[in-house]
């Protein structure tokens, strides 16, 4: 065929005879309906006349009905014959949108292949195929053709918008793979958008990063967020719909993604990487302008360093955390911070500082009427005093803690605080108890028996001057008691 189509010659029928003779020799004419019907008609007519009349009536009715049927256009017949997807593709192609067709075709093919690869047992087989869902196909057709028309005019912003709408639509229908595909397309289009200094590219990176994060590909997501951050660094006027500037958003996304990656490392046991990512997260959080985020990350870093036995750095972060909590008026956080700092000081051996912070914790907890926290705070403080030998205070605090847990009816804390309380009380009593046991005179023994009997605590009273001979048995019972309380102490 020549490049230019031949002249249109509707009347040009030269050499009809020659070709028709060839045609007759080779091409059988398709059997016409009328000839066979009429043959039937004639045959019957010769045999039975009555039957012929019925046949004629039937034929007549048939022709009348056929005439009544509407004329179907070619498009209508093809709609009847072909599947919905086929017709949709034909519509797109006939209008010249071949790229939309190619994209849609590739998507459907990809879905089918994924199904096959996954094997007959996978859940992919229960999902309805894209080609069987008319509404989605319609949306795809409408937006893809719009995008292609815009692309022809090189209006890449419109292309981006269409692809973005598609991605959003598929997010609502729950087709994550399609949403991801279109977000990536958006990003690709932004490369062609000129003159807006990369604002669209930044948006594109953000969306792709979010999509990747949802799929669990954290490192790629982090890359995209980093690009987003880099692009929006100095541009303060770029803001999203809710008024938050881009670079803040970028920083907060990065903080979040770094924390996720860090926790993965922690699970794997790679402590160095864990710490480095947490620190990165912290830097980002402080850049994001979101105090709460920064506070949380400071706390996490502090605790991590503490776990890693690096108390000095831990303290630095935890003090910053306290500052932020005060500015945020976050009392619970403040309490948590105090507790962590106290632990850190304790591990360093600075008990006094630890006690100071724990007292602050108790104060704050009481102020906010956070009973659980108060109970915990009191227990911690009690334990601290216990280890210091300040049993009086220990007992006081444990008493408080126990009462609160009883009031809360919190079974686990009840048992633990009860035990601790008992231990502290025993320790408190220990000194006077042993003194009595050593004395072993009549009043001492009476007191001991009193205590054994009904826990009457008379050990603090002044000891009358009397001697007793039966000291050995008492010694044994006293030593048993001492062992018992020692065990409890452990």
């Amino acid at each position, binding site marked *: 065929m020549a490049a230019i189509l031949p002249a*249109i010659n509707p009347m040009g029928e030269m050499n009809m005879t020659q070709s028709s003779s060839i*045609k007759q020799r*080779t*091409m059988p004419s398709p059997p016409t309906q009328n000839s066979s019907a009429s043959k039937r008609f004639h045959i019957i007519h010769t045999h039975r006349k009555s039957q012929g009349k019925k046949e004629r009536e039937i034929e007549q009715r048939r022709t009348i009905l056929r005439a009544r049927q509407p004329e179907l256009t070619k498009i209508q017949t093809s709609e009847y014959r072909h599947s919905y997807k086929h017709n949709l593709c034909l519509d797109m192609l*006939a209008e*010249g949108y071949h790229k939309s*067709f*190619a994209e849609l075709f590739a998507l459907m093919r990809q879905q089918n292949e994924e199904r096959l690869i996954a094997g007959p047992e996978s859940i992919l087989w229960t999902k309805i195929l894209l080609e069987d869902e008319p509404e989605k196909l319609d949306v795809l057709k409408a937006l893809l053709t719009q995008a292609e028309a815009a692309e*022809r005019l090189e209006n890449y912003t419109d292309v981006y918008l269409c692809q973005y709408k598609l991605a959003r639509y598929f997010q609502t229908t729950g087709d994550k793979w399609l949403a991801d595909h279109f977000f990536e397309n958006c990003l690709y289009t932004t490369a062609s958008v000129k003159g807006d200094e990369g604002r669209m590219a930044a948006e594109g990176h953000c969306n792709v990063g979010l999509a990747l994060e949802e799929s669990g590909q954290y490192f790629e997501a982090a890359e995209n967020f980093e690009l987003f951050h880099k692009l929006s660094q100095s541009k303060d006027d770029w803001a999203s719909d809710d008024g938050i500037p881009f670079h803040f958003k970028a920083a907060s996304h990065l903080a979040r993604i770094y924390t996720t990656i860090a926790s993965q490392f922690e699970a794997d046991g790679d402590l160095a990487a864990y710490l480095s990512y947490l620190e990165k997260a912290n830097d980002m959080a402080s850049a994001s302008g979101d105090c709460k985020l920064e506070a949380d990350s400071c706390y996490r870093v502090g605790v991590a360093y503490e776990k890693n036995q690096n108390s000095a750095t831990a303290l630095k972060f935890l003090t910053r955390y306290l500052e932020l909590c005060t500015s945020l008026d976050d009392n619970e956080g403040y309490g948590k911070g105090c507790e962590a700092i106290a632990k850190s000081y304790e591990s360093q051996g600075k008990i006094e500082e630890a006690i100071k912070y724990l007292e602050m914790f108790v104060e704050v907890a009481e102020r906010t009427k956070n009973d659980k926290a108060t109970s915990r705070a009191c227990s911690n403080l009690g334990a601290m005093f216990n280890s210091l030998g300040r049993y009086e205070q220990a007992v006081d605090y444990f008493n408080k803690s126990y009462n609160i847990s009883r009031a809360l009816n919190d079974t686990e804390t009840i048992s633990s605080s009860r035990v601790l309380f008992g231990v502290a009380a025993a320790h408190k009593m220990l000194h006077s108890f042993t003194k009595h046991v050593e004395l072993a005179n009549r009043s001492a023994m009476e007191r001991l028996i009193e205590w054994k009997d009904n826990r009457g605590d008379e050990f603090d009273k002044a000891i009358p001057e009397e001697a007793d001979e039966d000291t050995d048995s008492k010694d044994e019972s006293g030593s048993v008691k001492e062992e018992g309380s020692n065990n409890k102490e452990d």
Partner: protein
Amino acid sequence: MSVINPSENSSTISQLRREERVHREEQLKFRQLQMIELTRTTGQKLLFEGKHEQAVPAAMQSLRFAIDVYGLASIELVPSYLILGEASIGLGRLSQAEEYLSQAQWTVLKTPECSNAIKSKLYRNLGLLYAAKGEYNESLRQLADDIYHASEEFGTDDIRTSGGYFHMGNVFFRQNNMDISMSLYTQVTEIWYEHLSMLVEKKMSVSSRQESIGPLVTEVVDEDEGLDEAQEAEAIQVLNAIFDIWEQQASKKPELIAKITHALAMLYFMLQDLNKAKEFGRKAVVACEGVQDEDFSRNIVEFLKFIRPTPILFTNMSAFDRKDD
């Protein structure tokens, strides 16, 4: 030929004869199939070269062979009918073309398991017919069907689908819809460019391994990956047509001109027509100067360097011969 034991010998002889007969029949069938294929390809090639008169006898012959092998109403006759139809369109005999194509369409309809490849060819020819009649909308619809079936069978970026895109581009061009036709022609160019690049790369990697200095660079590319005659003719027609159109509309997009000239250069290289290959290669280099893409121009320069050495070899050898005199 002993007569002593006639019964024994006759049975072996008849067995031999039977085996011979079967073998001969198989051979005959094989040769017939080859003939069908050959005549069809020749017919198709002649069509692409624009020699419609000559294509008719080739197509008729293929039809006769096919009827001998397959019978009168078989689906295997359809490709031959399609070539006849296309030749008729080329000669301007549209109603005749319509009859041939209707017959083909009827056969396809009656054969539900008909392959997508045959359907695609049928719709392509129907599209050409309607375009020749001036019914552009109907033609577009038929060509859309062609592209759809070709994509189902070969994929959206295959050279066999590219024919559909090309004809559709032509129709839009006639309707004065320049944007769409440009976009379609670009797609066609891309498809052929990719395919030809792949073929040329294979050839380059093969001949770089060749140590001996042979008189000619022989065709070492595998048969099934290279182009057959009809495809070669199609490529020549399609790519030249696009080049002509773009040369006139020219300078807006130098990268497109660069691409089409490069593709043409590669095509003529594959066809051993080195003069034309060099000519188009030069045009490509000129067009490249407008393009910023570094890789693109590098590819063309490398390609040209690859073509150049062989003629130089010839000139040296002829000089050597002359010295000996």
